[in-house]
């Protein structure tokens, strides 16, 4: 299980108070990033007339 947080030697490293502190510090940064990301996804779901009217010829 090397993808989840493990100590050297392969034992799972349980949640510590430092982890919580580190996570809480990032909340406001993530809030801004998520708002920007939501806008990008909404934009990506749109399709312009330019694309729809392109002719596939070959």
């Amino acid at each position, binding site marked *: 299980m090397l993808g*989840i947080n493990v100590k050297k030697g392969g034992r*799972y490293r349980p949640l510590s108070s430092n982890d919580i502190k580190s996570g809480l510090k990032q909340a406001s940064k993530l809030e801004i990033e998520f708002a920007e990301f939501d806008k990008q996804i909404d934009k990506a779901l749109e399709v312009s007339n330019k*694309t729809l009217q392109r002719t596939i010829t070959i």
Partner: protein
Amino acid sequence: MTDDECNPELGEAFNINSFTEENLKTSLNNPFLLQRKFDKRFPEYSQHFQYLYSYLSDMKCKTILQENNYIDRDYLVDFAHYYVRCFTPYGRLTKRIHFFSKEFDKQLFLSALNGSKKNINIIKKNYIGFIVAKPLPEAIIGRTLLGTYENGCVPTTNNAKRFFTCVYKQKINLFGIDMEIESLEYQEQDAVTAACATSALWSAFHQTDKIFKGTWAPTPVEITESANKFWQLSRPIPSSGLTVMQMCQAIHEVGLEAYVHSIEDQKDPYMHPLISLIYAYLKMGVPVILHAEINGDDHAVTLNGYCLEEKQHIPREVKRNYPYIPLVGRRISKFYAHDDQIGPFCKLEIVQKILDPYKIEKYLHSYKKILTYEPISIIVPLYTKIRVVFLDVFRWVKKFHDFLKAFNRIIETNIEWNIYLCELNTFRNQVLSGRLYKQDRSRLLRKSLPHYIWRIELNTLDGNKILEIIADATDMKRSFFFKDMVYFNSQFKTDIHNLLNDRQVRTGYEHVLTEKLFNFLFETSQ
């Protein structure tokens, strides 16, 4: 000559020859054919022949059986719509050319037709597929069903695994002998009843006809006509091409809806994980039409499979300045496509670059040059009820990922998200038989879920599953469509629960993740 060998009205019913370049040419030939179709000096015309010869050689083809006077439905409908009214007397009958990976002669085949079980088995076991040869001047490659490299046991490099997901078991009857092959229909565009967009749709519809109930697979001329029902840019037949909008109309006409993802409308083509987006649909067997620009012209191909490497093939799918999470797309090294300019199941390679994260390329042996496919849009023919698309799901997964990362619960370099569309029955079958689902099996099997779901797996790169989220693919993007979640590591689950149960974490993150996601994560971790 006996009655077995000869039809008094139509000449010989079949011919058998060993597989050589010359014999393949002879089988495909017809009185109207322009000979440049086989001439290596004209790669733009002989591309199909050279690709097919090389493909069949890789499949270890040994014998060609030419079934004469074959009536092919797709060609017959095209013939009735166009060729019959030409001054030149093009024929309505075709040749169906069958390929086998074992050498045999006429005697053996006749003995099979006389009931020899041993010889019938030889014919069945070594079947590679067929090509319908149309009696036309140029576009002679008609309906083609050839086995994949997986069937042909052609090895891969680096333990990579090929997945031809858009193929299905085809039954072929050759003079009473029932044979089976896993493949997907391919044919070359004739630029009369079908341009490349029509050919791409035609192949895709043969697959959607099998996976989505209540839809059908029209012939090329029927697709061209339905695409031109409302918008005609020029005369529809002879067809010079279709717009994306016309392709969407043709998809609508067969009872499906088109999901179009435009790449050219984005600020940067490497802003969203395109490879993982394509994979998410291919994994369920939904064909994806890649609309790309090649040397300034727009082209469409039907993607029908992918090659998955054991290790990461490209470092990132998006450029560094755009939001990203590690997805399966990084391990995909090739897509397989029915490209009507080249042939069936041709390899489109994902090649890592310096300035861009990757390019989609095809090496053409006949030209000795590389074609670069610059994606313009992706067109996915979907069942009408599948409304939630990959990017809707990706939006929520990204938030969960960043939350886990912020609290040091995952090591980003060692995990991978696997997001894909799935039929409920497939999921239930896996839950029923999968050892990992033991704890949640009964609950998951009894749970009421929609027919189409998104599965979101978080896996470690060494192949262990950490968790899986089930989302409703039939809901709407403004809703919260996550329906269930399974943890495969109890300690990890406990930690997530403790984290979400922390008052400070709730205060800090409830509005960041949204109340719906926060509560979903909390409830499913109990």
